[in-house]
Structure formats: structure tokens, C-alpha cells
């Protein structure tokens, strides 16, 4: 098991990349901007009292989007790039299994993204204290943990895609396609499915905002970001089971998150393991 060696090499390599520093700076600015908005411009939220929970809830959606895009940037070349450039021959000429390579990539690149996210979260503390936001260390830590899990999941997802092909162009295409579908176009999936299931008739309540059936709600909660937001909500309110059926609960969103990480990674690994380099 030499995945830790691969992870360290990968992290050392990536932390010297300019794009990582650009990414970190962007996240820092983003985090401070949103925290500042929350703390000093009360009009952006309806919160009567500014609190850590309120701040986190406010922050979760932009963080989710940032992590999704940034992990694509950090990960899409991780395995395919080494196969294409020939550095993979250097890597696999050394005694690593291909499983070690894939695992090492997930861990190394997750650290690459986790560091700027953590730095951003810590930097926001300054605004929390200056802006008289009620501070709860426990909420802060819980939010940080779920966010780290989310980083790991998205990184595993894109490393899996990268491992499934030996062409960086194809890895990029697949990754962008996946990102667009999951993060920007997903809304049409539950609605479309509801429409189809209703016999191609617009279901009553589709546009009036009436509650959608549970299974449609489940579909809507499926993308990694939605699962993350649902989990964050559960963790911060301390209620993981919710009121609806089990598959709409917050703890199940954690399971959905894990599936998003594991399945593409396993599929990508299996393809990589069979491939001629």
C-alpha cells in the first residue's frame, strides 16, 4: 500500500501550481465576501439574529458550487494526464499498484482543495468576531467536516472520470458534461420525470409550488450539491432524520454523497486497471 507516497508526491506537485494559488485566492475572496455580506448587510438575509448556523446556511450554496468547479479543475487531468504525458510510466515503473495510484490521487488532490477551503473557513472567523455573529465552535467544526467530506466526494468523482480514459481531452469533456448536468441542468430531471410519470400531462401543482411527491423530491435531492446542502442543514439543526420518508432524511443524503464518490471511482479504477498505458 503505497498510496500515501503517491498522495504526497501529488500534493507536493500540485501545491506548486499557479492555478492552485489562484484557486485559493479566489476562494478566500469569495468566503470573505459572503461572510461580510452576511455580517454587515442585514438585508441579504431575513435572519433576526446573526449566528454561525445562519452564516453557514448562507455560505453552503456558494461553497458547494465552488467546490464542484474547483475539484473539476484540480482532478480532471489527475490520472488521464499522467497516462497521456508519459509521467505515468515513471509513476508505474515504480512499485505502485494502479489502485495505489488512484487512491493516492484522490487523497492528494483532496488535500489540495481542502487546504484553501479550510483557510477560507478560518479566515471567515475574523468577520464572525468583528461582525458580532453569535459563534458556535461546534457548528463551525461540523460544517467544516461535512464540507471536507463533500470535497473528498467530488474529488473522487472527477478522479474516477479521469481514470476511466487515457485522453485528457475526453476526461475534460466528460467532466464538464457531468458538472453541467449535476450542477446546472439537474432541475429538469425531477420535473421531467414527474411529467413523464404523470402520463405526459403537466402534473397539478408543478408550477403552483405545491408539494411534490416524495420520489420527485428524492430525485431533486440527488446531485452531490443538493445532498451536501441537505446534510449541512441536518448537521446544523441537529436533526438528521427529518419529517418525511427515510430516503429524504439528512443522514441518507450523506449516503447519497458517499455513493457519488465511490461508484464513479470504482468504475474508473476498473477501467484504468484494464487499460494499456
Amino acid at each position, binding site marked *: 500500500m503505497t498510496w500515501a507516497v503517491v498522495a504526497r*508526491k501529488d500534493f507536493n506537485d500540485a501545491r506548486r501550481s499557479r492555478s492552485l494559488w489562484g484557486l485559493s485566492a479566489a476562494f478566500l475572496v469569495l468566503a470573505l465576501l459572503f461572510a461580510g455580506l452576511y455580517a454587515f448587510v442585514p438585508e441579504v438575509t431575513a435572519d433576526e439574529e446573526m449566528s454561525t448556523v445562519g452564516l453557514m446556511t448562507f455560505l453552503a450554496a456558494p461553497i458547494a458550487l465552488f467546490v464542484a468547479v474547483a475539484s473539476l479543475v484540480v482532478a480532471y487531468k489527475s490520472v488521464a494526464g499522467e497516462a497521456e504525458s508519459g509521467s505515468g*510510466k515513471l509513476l*508505474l*515503473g*515504480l512499485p*505502485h499498484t494502479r489502485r495505489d495510484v488512484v487512491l493516492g490521487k484522490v487523497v492528494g488532490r483532496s488535500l489540495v482543495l481542502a487546504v484553501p477551503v479550510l483557510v477560507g473557513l478560518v479566515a471567515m472567523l475574523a468577520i464572525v468576531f468583528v461582525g458580532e455573529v453569535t459563534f458556535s465552535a461546534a457548528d463551525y467544526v461540523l460544517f467544516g467536516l461535512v464540507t471536507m467530506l463533500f470535497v473528498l466526494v467530488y474529488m473522487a468523482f472527477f478522479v474516477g472520470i479521469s481514470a476511466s480514459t487515457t485522453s485528457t481531452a475526453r476526461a475534460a469533456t466528460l467532466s464538464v458534461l457531468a458538472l453541467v448536468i449535476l450542477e446546472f441542468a439537474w432541475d429538469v430531471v425531477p420535473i421531467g420525470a414527474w411529467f413523464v410519470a404523470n402520463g405526459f400531462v403537466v402534473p397539478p401543482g408543478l408550477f403552483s409550488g405545491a408539494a411534490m411527491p416524495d420520489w420527485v423530491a428524492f430525485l431533486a435531492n440527488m446531485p452531490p450539491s443538493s445532498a451536501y446542502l441537505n446534510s449541512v442543514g441536518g448537521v446544523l439543526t441537529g436533526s438528521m432524520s427529518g419529517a418525511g420518508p427515510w430516503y429524504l432524511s439528512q443522514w441518507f443524503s450523506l449516503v447519497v454523497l458517499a455513493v457519488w464518490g465511490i461508484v464513479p471511482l470504482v468504475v474508473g479504477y476498473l477501467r484504468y486497471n484494464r487499460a494499456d498505458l
Partner: protein
Amino acid sequence: MASAIELTGLTKHFGEVVALEDVDLTVEEGEIFGFLGPNGAGKSTTIDTLLDFIRPTSGSARVLGLDAQRDSLEIRRRTGVLPDAYQVYDRLTGRQHVQFAIDSKGTDDDPLALLERVGIADAADRRAGGYSKGMRQRLVLAMALVGAPEILILDEPSTGLDPNGAREMRQLIREESERGATVFFSSHILEQVEAICDRVAILNKGRMSPSTPSRGCATPPARRRNSRLESTVPEGAIEAIEVLDGVQSVNASGTTVIVRIEDGSKTAILDVLESAGAEVLDFSTAETSLEELFAQFTTEPQRNRTSEADAPASETEAEPAEVAR
């Protein structure tokens, strides 16, 4: 004792393209083995198979007695690799590269000492992205030397090296061999192979040379001679020469007779010819060098064509000397 490398019927197809066809090869422990062939012959494909970068269509590859696919990790623990068409990690320093190899193999080598050995210690803390081609080659060689491997697999090791660098590379290969390592290296440059190899094999278009499987540069093939005679060729003379001791082949074309022989039977050939009534106008011999073997094997079609075209002395036969009477 297991062979260091053993290929049996190794075949690799990439779709329609046949990269390797039924390759058999044995490399004994402790020898320096030159793997020769023109570009595109399949040398890298063979090496990639040894390292499990690619999987054979059929046949098997064994390294250090282990199966190249099933036991790849164990093989790579005990092997030093300088691959072909690799790329270094631009953002990591030379030292970090070697340290990565050390960590990967779990040895306690000193990265700086290894970089010293390949002559780039002064660039240890510079990013490898700024290295010249030759420095990269030296860097990856240093990575290959980590852990004093039992076998070194070097794919075109002199690529990017100037003559001086190539000489240092040969020196290093000799040192490693003296330490007891088996060295298997590929090259399309004859001089590289001739200069240091114990034995050689030639690969062309995915097939092993039929004339040189596991025959060394310094063993029988090199002592084979071509004798060229300018002579009128009487009836029955060719047949009489063919049955002589040590004669491998006889070719007559116009007034030129080319006889391929092992040691010592040159005068016997002359005797036979003259006693058959031939007038020998000219006579010359030439040792078949590795270069000729290489040329013979890798340019087979052209050679046949020219020898059929009744040319009294065609240069593709590669006999250097021809003495006029």
C-alpha cells in the same frame, strides 16, 4: 537459477496493428543484454509488457522468475526502470523525484548521492521542468538506480545524451553489471549496443531475428565470414562448395560467388573452385559484424531484390574489402 527475463511466444496486437508476433527471448542473470531494432520495431512494447504497462494478446513474459502481470508489483520492487517517452514532473525538483522513487521503494538511499552518480547533483534543487533533455535522462536513470535493483530495464538510455553523456551512461551500466545487476537495454543505435553488451537480440517489425536469438556479439555470429570470389562458375562447383565443412550458404550471381562460412575453410573453397576449372579473379573476406546482421535482418526485402539484379558487387552485402588482382 531462473532467467532474468523470459519471453515465450509473446504477441501483442493493437487492434489491427501487430506490435509483437511470437517473440521468444531469454536473458540470463548478470548479463548485459542489448535489445536492438529500428524505431517502431516493438522494443518499447516489449518493455512495456515486462512492466505490465500493457497486457499481451497471447504468450507470457516472466521477469526474475515472476509473472509480469500477476507479480508486477514484486517485479517492480526489484527492478530499476528507465522508460521510453516518459515525462518528468515539471514542478518537482530533481531531489524530489529521486526521493519519490526512494519512498516508493521503501529504501534509504541518499538522493544527493544518486544525483552525484549521474552527474546532476548541482541541479538537485532546481525544478525538473527546467532541465535539458539530457539532464532529464540522467535524473530518471538516478531514479532507476534507487535500491540497487537486481535488474535494470533501460529503454533507449542514450536518448538525449551527448557523446560524453552516452559514454558515462555506458560506464554506469558497466558498474551496475559489476555489482551483479542484470542490464536489459534497448537501442536503435548499434554502437551503443556493440560497445558494452554481452549478448544481443534484434527485433524488427515485431519479430525476433531468426539469425540471432540469444547469440552474443562476441560469440559465433560475429566470427562468421563472408568470402567473396570473382570467378567464372563451372557446373557443379556450387554444389561441391555447399557440402564443405563449415559452409553455411553459397550464392552465385554472375561472376561473383558469396560463401558464408564458419572458421577455417577458405582455402578449401578455393581448392574446390580451381579444381573444378574456375579461374579465380579476385578473393576477399569480411567478418559479419553486428551492423551487418542488423542490416541483413532489418532490410531483408531490399537485399533480396539487389542480389537478384545481377549486380557484381552490391553494397548492401556490406563486405568492406575487395582486393583487385
